[in-house]
């Protein structure tokens, strides 16, 4: 059984159909890329999975359970973590605190426990800090843990978002254009990181413009255009699909114009 499956998902804004009967599935352990020209509805699909939007119809199942109508934090709790296309860190807080945000949903201490600092609460805080250290070391940011998030470079901020997502102990991580704004060196490191995440047994769903990265990182690609799925399959199959080539040639011109 697949880890995540979308079945005929539809989302409209006003009169505009942003996502039109899209179905695909992500198997556990895979790295899957969701690609398509600008404005194709990729981010909308992500926001449907993470609960920021609710589908008008269709079904989204994660580990056999529906995520439809659940709030984003609940979906994080179920095991899906995400990053944002435009970096959304807690800029005035320290790097380690940003990561602790991800730990939050795995912690339980309530107001009373915090007030009198029960042994359980202290143990939990300590454990959260260990988790934070582990994921920060994983993305190689532990040395900067005490800095404020805003002082990091753009590429490192993207890594911090990934670390925050990993801290929630997800089984599926959704990365929205993680290579955006990165230079070649950083992109190469990102590819390595994605493989490392996958090696930990975490399934990855990726939106990305950098085709080089997508082709090398992903085992499976889903291509959407105008909110509709036009192709699905292994990278080399998709690459030679005439519809995909057509869609991308069109979009290349647009991108050049920008």
């Amino acid at each position, binding site marked *: 059984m697949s880890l995540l499956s979308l079945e005929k998902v539809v989302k409209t804004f006003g009169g505009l159909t942003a996502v039109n009967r899209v179905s695909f599935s992500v198997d556990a352990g895979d790295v899957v890329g969701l690609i398509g020209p600008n404005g194709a509805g990729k981010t909308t699909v992500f926001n449907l999975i*993470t609960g*920021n939007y609710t589908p008008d119809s269709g079904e989204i199942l994660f580990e056999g359970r529906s995520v439809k109508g659940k*709030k*984003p*934090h*609940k979906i*994080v*709790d179920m095991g899906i*973590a*995400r990053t*944002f296309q435009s970096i*959304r*860190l*807690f*800029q*005035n*807080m*320290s790097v*380690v*605190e940003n990561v*602790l*945000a*991800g730990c*939050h*949903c795995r*912690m339980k*201490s309530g*107001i009373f426990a*915090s*007030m*009198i*600092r029960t042994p359980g*609460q202290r143990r939990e*805080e300590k454990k*959260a*800090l260990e988790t934070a*250290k582990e994921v920060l070391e994983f993305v190689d940011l*532990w*040395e*900067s*843990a*005490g*800095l*404020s998030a805003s*002082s*990091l*470079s753009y590429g*490192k901020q993207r890594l911090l978002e990934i670390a*925050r*997502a990993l801290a*929630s102990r997800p089984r599926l991580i959704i990365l929205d254009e993680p290579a955006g704004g990165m230079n070649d060196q950083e992109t190469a490191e990102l590819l390595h990181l994605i493989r490392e995440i996958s090696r930990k047994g975490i399934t990855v769903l990726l939106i990305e413009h950098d085709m080089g990265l997508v082709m090398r990182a992903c085992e499976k690609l889903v291509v959407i255009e105008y909110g509709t799925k036009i192709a699905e399959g292994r990278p080399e199959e998709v690459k030679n699909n005439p519809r995909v080539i057509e869609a991308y040639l069109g979009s290349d011109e647009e991108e050049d114009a920008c």
Partner: protein
Amino acid sequence: MNKNAFIISVLLAFFACFPVLFSNPYWIGVLNDIWLYAILGLSLNWIVGHTGLFNLGHAAYYAVGAYTAAILSTRYNIPILWLLPVAGAAAGLFALAVARPIIHLRGDYLAIVTIGVGEIVRIALENDIFGLTGGSNGIFGIPRPEIFDMRIRRPWQFYYLIGGFLLITIWFFYRLEQSRFGRALNYIKEDETAAEGSGINTAWYKLAAFVIGAVWAGMAGTLFAAKMTIISPGSFNFWESVLIFAIVILGGAGSIPGVILGAFLLVGLPEFFRNFADARMLFFGAAMVLMMIFRNKGLLPPLARKYAGVPRVKGGDA
């Protein structure tokens, strides 16, 4: 050991001895007001400073607490200090009912609605709602509090009562601030969407922050009723809310020492300039504008939390 602990100890010792050293009831009375506003400020700080929710009607919850205590103590002769939790609960329940539907509103919208709630409460009190609040005259004859058969009536006695409650307040909010609860609120203040996307139940935490702040304001209301023995709607108008708000913002939103400093400056300082009493609000207004332009985190901004084992900060990062 460190400088801050030393400063805090000295200040604590000084204020603990203040009534003994200076038996001037006037200045003790001023300090009582400062303590009370510090408690109110800290309760609002939890909502405004930590969570970033614009509550400009905090006087409403203060009023609900004060009136609950006043009504129950005058009608049923319940000792007023027993009513601290009751009044807090009443204010909290009221806040829960009010905030639940409006808490999702953003910035200015929430500000205007909380102003509206504050006004509705004041108007309701003035119109003698349920025949309980005594209209614009308010309620008088509120019994003095008693502790171990000692009747609290002199300023110095209130000094230790209110000051003691302030210490509890500081301890309570400090512990919350340092916990995952406090962090969750700060995430919400920084970026609500990102907080929700990181797994934080933002709706619940915003509501919880609002209600806790209101509970504390309700308890402060009980102390106020006990101190004054007379309360009336005029004590809970919009300017009261603005004063508490200004204490938080000017002192340092999210910072306990900042809020206490704010209470000293905004409540205490005007006592030195009594000739300019009318111009007090004029200065507050100007100070708010200037502070936002030149130092928008307030006089004593919050310090970053410390975590054991996190590498020391060494300069900037490219």
